[in-house]
């Protein structure tokens, strides 16, 4: 599995659809699965380079603040204090919590039920090929 696919698989493991930001389907597309979902900015690094920041946005349509907060907490716990390593071709990804970990972002131009959480994830690419 390529590093890019390994990252996508990891981010797809939280029970909601995950899309690379550049490949997020529009509402009405066949691929559009509705709320909730997450998008992420794919940033790729390499062995010997500093960790990169991958911003993840969680999108919910709900009256509850607790629902998206719970998903942020789920991601927080899954990554853990020391991060988590994910195998991929040539090595592994070391996925860590970024700083600040998460923040709520006001969504403009949408109905007021749409909630957005901006999550910072750092990834160190420990891939030797």
């Amino acid at each position, binding site marked *: 599995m390529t590093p890019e696919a390994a990252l996508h698989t990891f981010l797809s493991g939280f029970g909601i659809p995950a899309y690379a930001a550049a490949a997020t389907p529009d509402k009405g597309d066949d691929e559009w699965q509705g709320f909730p979902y997450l998008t992420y900015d794919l940033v790729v690094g390499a*062995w*010997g380079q500093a960790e990169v920041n991958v911003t993840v946005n969680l999108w919910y349509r709900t009256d509850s603040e607790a629902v998206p907060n719970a998903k942020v907490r789920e991601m927080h716990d899954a990554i853990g204090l*020391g*991060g*988590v*390593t994910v*195998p991929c071709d*040539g*090595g*592994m990804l*070391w996925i860590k919590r970024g700083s600040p970990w998460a923040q709520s972002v006001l969504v403009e131009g949408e109905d007021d039920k749409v909630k957005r959480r901006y999550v910072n994830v750092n990834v160190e690419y*420990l*891939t*030797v*090929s």
Partner: protein
Amino acid sequence: MKFTQVAADAFQKLQLNAGVMLSEFDPDDGALDRSKILAATGGGVAFEATPNFVDFGEDIDNVPNNTKELKKLDYFDVKMSGTAKTADTDFAKMLVGAADVSGTKVTPRSTLSLEDYSDIWWVGDYSDVNTGASAGFMAIKLIDALSTGGFKIQSNDNGKGDFAFEFTGHYSLEDIDAVPFEIYIAEGESPDATLSSLAFGSLTLSPTFNKGVTAYTTSTTNATNTITATATDNTATVVIKNGSTTVTSGSSATWVTGANTVTVTVTNGAASKVYTVTVTKS
């Protein structure tokens, strides 16, 4: 470039994160008892074991320094240092070195006692398998450690206090040749998600079952056969499906005429393996 390369398994030999300082650790089982953590640290832990040599060639004419036959290892100076972010009375006593604890009070002594020495472990994450019971670790045991850095606290305005520490390992007259540190490096082992046996009644699998081979065929004229699948690790779970129908190990699967696809999925922690058997009923 020819000599700008990294070993293919380099990622499996990395020490990761700051690790923990422990009062006890058993490298044979690698289990972490969080109640044995001495203190939270900031900025990691530094360990150094510096050899001290005597060079008998130093004052002999016509013999250069560092002649291997004339060099003697005298002793190792072994230290573990860093900054703690937490402290309780037990850790404060360790920092003082010669001290006693009574309730909330730590009372320094002017004389050392053999009870003031204790082993200290540093254990850190290691290798690509770094979670679960078989996680890799790098561990250092500092033997008969005593605080040689003293008790220090640096409070910080609007911040957490720092307790700088330095512990030194000590030799003992009980075994004067025993160097006061040990290093353990254990690569993590992925959980075993293989089958030790797979049988379809009296049918013959082709090829013969081998836990490393995941695709098999067989043929039958029976309406049903009993499927028995046993995981190598008895803590692993085994799910058998005949098409979309779940079959319990030791129970019968019912065949339709033609090809029947049976999948056996073994899951052990993060590891899984799928065996596929195509059963042709005529």
